[in-house]
């Protein structure tokens, strides 16, 4: 598949990058950002074709970083280079950053009330449910015994035994990539 499609417009202004990603940043909530970006970038503006969007989404999901921010870096830098990536990421993060600080202010003012605490408890429970949902969705990329073993090992060591995550990840990530590279070679998709 060609991801070097030359049909993309390079005449997108930095300001319109910021505006478009700001709008997506405000209107999209956990998990739904990809759908909003798809509508905005592929369907409405034609900045990316569908195949390229799917490739971008995959890369952004596996790399470190919040997926929406990664996608904005990807798309922005495709359209306008490094500065475009920075503009898109700024647009994506800035409005929600302001909103969450306002929420944080209300939390420090009213968070002590029992009702506020109960509501946050309910929201946290749903938030954990969302985390489980995302985990279940990701398992479709992990189907063979050794990768499953690696996933379970990381869950047990980090989640149950509470070992520090960074050394665990630094050891198991290269191992996992090496396993895929040499033990389980598969034609690239």
């Amino acid at each position, binding site marked *: 598949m060609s991801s070097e499609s030359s049909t993309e417009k390079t005449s997108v202004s930095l300001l319109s990058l910021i505006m478009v990603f700001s709008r997506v940043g*405000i209107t999209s909530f956990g998990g739904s950002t990809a759908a909003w970006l798809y509508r905005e970038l592929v369907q409405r503006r034609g900045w990316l074709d569908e195949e390229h969007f799917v490739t971008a989404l995959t890369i952004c999901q596996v790399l470190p970083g*919040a997926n929406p921010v990664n996608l904005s*870096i990807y798309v922005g830098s495709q359209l306008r280079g490094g500065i475009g990536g920075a503009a898109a990421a700024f647009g994506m993060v800035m409005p929600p950053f302001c909103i969450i*600080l306002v929420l944080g202010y209300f939390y420090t003012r009213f968070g002590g009330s029992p009702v506020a605490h109960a509501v946050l408890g309910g*929201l*946290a429970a749903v938030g954990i*449910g*969302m985390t489980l949902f995302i985990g279940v969705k990701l398992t479709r990329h992990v189907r063979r015994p050794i*990768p499953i073993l690696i996933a379970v090992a990381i869950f047990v060591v980090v989640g149950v035994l509470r070992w520090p995550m960074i050394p665990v990840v630094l050891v198991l990530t290269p191992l996992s990539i090496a396993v895929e590279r040499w033990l389980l070679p598969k034609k690239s998709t």
Partner: protein
Amino acid sequence: MNDGRLLLLALVFAPLSLMSFGGGQAIIADMQHQTVDIHHWMTGPEFADFFALSRAAPGPSTLISALIGWKVAGPLGAIVATLAIYIPSSLAVYGAVRWWHASNDSPWRGALERGLAPVAVGLVFAGAVAVMQAAQVNALQIVTTLLAAGLLIFTRIGVYAIMAAAAFVFAALQWL
């Protein structure tokens, strides 16, 4: 606000940024461990409240770092923590995207893509457990969590409808 706290915030969040394979869920376990158990910046239930806020707000869930930064060192803390959580991963993504387009035929490409997936899966489930421990969840919350996950997996009901319903039920039970 002293510089030591700002520097400490950057030193805690910047490495987490590079570890957040598959998104912010991956680092919630370690973020909770560092802010609650190691640096004592907040209590477990407080962390769980921040988690709930960051989940209910628009934008990426990693914006919980802005709330933690604010709590630790005020407005500057919020900015420092947010920059620290996004800049390292963003630079990595920028570099990776450039490399990606330059190495269309490399066998490393597929290996990287598939090799990172199990790491992300393990970390995401570890994150769910960490938040449940931090929140000291009760039976009602566990039922809510499982119900929400089931609805998201098997139906097309939006997460906002579920959050609104949960907020309503929990508030109503508090009033009774």
